[in-house]
């Protein structure tokens, strides 16, 4: 098992190399000149030359690439041009709020949707199944943005106006307990938005599994509902569950642009959005690279977990 994990980890290296070259090409070779984007049309040649030197863009491309890699490996990621602070600190500060407003929701809606999906699959075609599917479809049909606006308005703004205890409308405070009031509503929204999709997804996966012959065998040997669903079906659909849940983590953490903007939460998405607005080239490039790294790591974790639950995945 340990060798398998090590092997999978080693296999990340070529992927990451490829990703780093790709990101480098996008930003340093193909993309627009970041210096002009940042300084605007009216910059003097002296200013342009000075910023170019500062960013190291006057050096040959291979040197630029190697310097970039060195920065990544030492986690000395350079400075943001707009925020004037180290990018490494921006990233570390942003990751906490981002995790706080997404991962609790992920755990909650995944758990609920897996159970609902299993229940629907077991009682497929019954009224219960139809009601759950209808509810999920309605949930899916409502726009994410609409959910945020309605929730923020009716659950935070309106009660606040009437002096009722409710969620804070926007903002964030650091600290495990201090952040709780601020992260509740964003989590609820994330949960609501994803619940419909995931319930339908897990229902489809579980329905397919319920038709397998081993389920008939389990029933023929007297297994009850709970054993069928939570022993036999659950472990067999663990792989789609893992790939859906684990792989989505980096996207949730780094991609909550809307949620973080609406609630003014200083997470990764919020910071990245600001960097994009101010053409802050080093931040955009570095964040892109770090997010890619998270994606690769999440995929590897998903692979390792899958091999733990399914004996048919060869470890050798």
């Amino acid at each position: 098992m340990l060798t398998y994990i090590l092997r999978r980890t080693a296999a990340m290296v070529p992927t990451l190399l490829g990703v780093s070259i790709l990101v480098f090409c996008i930003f340093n070779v193909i993309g627009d000149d970041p210096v002009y984007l940042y300084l605007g049309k009216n910059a003097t040649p002296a200013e342009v030359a000075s910023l170019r030197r500062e960013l190291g863009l006057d050096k040959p491309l291979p040197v630029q690439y190697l310097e970039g890699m060195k920065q990544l490996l030492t986690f000395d990621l350079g400075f943001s041009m707009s925020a004037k602070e180290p990018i490494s600190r921006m990233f570390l500060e942003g990751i906490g709020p981002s995790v706080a407003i997404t991962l609790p929701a992920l755990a909650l809606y995944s758990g609920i949707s897996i159970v609902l999906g299993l229940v629907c699959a077991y009682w497929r075609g019954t009224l219960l199944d139809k009601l759950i599917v209808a509810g999920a479809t309605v949930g899916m049909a409502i726009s994410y943005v609409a959910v945020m606006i309605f929730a923020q308005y009716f659950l935070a703004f309106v009660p606040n106006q009437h002096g009722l205890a409710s969620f804070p409308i926007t903002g964030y405070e650091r600290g495990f307990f201090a952040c709780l009031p601020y992260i509740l509503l964003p989590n609820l929204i994330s949960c609501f938005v994803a619940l419909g999709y995931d319930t339908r997804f897990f229902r489809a996966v579980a329905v397919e599994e319920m038709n397998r012959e081993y389920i008939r065998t389990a029933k023929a040997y007297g297994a009850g509902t709970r054993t069928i669903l939570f022993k036999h079906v659950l472990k067999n659909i663990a792989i789609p569950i893992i790939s859906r849940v684990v792989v989505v983590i980096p996207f949730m953490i780094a991609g909550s642009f809307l949620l973080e903007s609406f609630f003014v939460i200083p997470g990764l998405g919020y910071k990245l959005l600001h960097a994009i607005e101010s053409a802050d080239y080093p931040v955009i490039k570095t964040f892109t690279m770090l997010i890619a790294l998270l994606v690769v790591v999440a995929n590897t974790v998903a692979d390792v977990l899958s091999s733990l639950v399914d004996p048919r995945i060869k470890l050798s």
Partner: protein
Amino acid sequence: MGKTVLEVQNLVTEFHVEHGVARAVDGVSFHLEEGETLGLVGESGSGKSVTSLSLMRLVPSPPGRILPSSRIVLGGRDVMKLSEREMQAVRGSEVAMVFQDPMTALNPVYTVGNQLAEVLLRHEGLSREKARARAVELLEHVGIPAPAKRADSYPHQLSGGMRQRAMIAMALSCSPRILIADEPTTALDVTIQAQILELIKKLQRETGMAVIMITHDLGVVAETCDRVNVMYCGRIVEEAPIRDLFAAPKHPYTRGLIDSIPDLEASRGGVRKPLFAIPGMVPDIHHLPAGCRFAERCFKAADACRSSDPVLSDLAPGRRAACLTPLAAGERAPAAAEA
């Protein structure tokens, strides 16, 4: 005559599908005696598997439904009147099933020992350690070498024959009174088939359980059964003790099945003769004819056969056939007589 362990009367199982209701099993009645092997023979779609699933109330519902007028009496209790929970206690402990394809019939992500132990924990109330020890014993009993090691194997790590042995071990785990073997050898190669049938017979002798052998293979029937029910289109069309069935079938369909068995003796010496086949096709279950369901394919069909539906009636003790013109001894289709 042994004691009757299972009595089925007028079993009707329907499936509600988009374009109507399909009666997969249409008024099937039979009984099963202690220690005997009853064959349930028929081609694909004749309703034999649905019959066996109905006995266990395992027909998926919806879309399937067993009509409440059906009577399934198992060891003195009417199965149709049991609650789902009581039914769960019956499944696997009083009646056990062995399925066609042991690769797909076992859960791929649990070890064989785990799946055996699950049944033992549920029905026998054993502790985890005892269930595990008993599982190993059972695997040994069905002839699996290195049973302790095999108990920790996953289904995909075993050969087809071994998997079917493991399945049989599971069936045996709670000493059932009835074993339903649904095409237990169809997915196996011929040498393994013989071993598995021999194993089932040996276990039957040891435990005195009754066996319902569901198959489309008359060779398997000849080798294992005491008595046979032939099914066609959701109904039993003939019932006979094994010898009588092969010696003098009463129903033209049974005759046709027997005549369709390739004859190695006849083709020895280089003379190749075309294999006899029953002409025509099984009628569509949604558009059944008014009269006998076999009439269109029957060499003996008279006008009466196309208008009135024959019922299964006694011809001699232990012999029933649903035919208006039952065959005399030696009577066969002209084409089969030539072949």
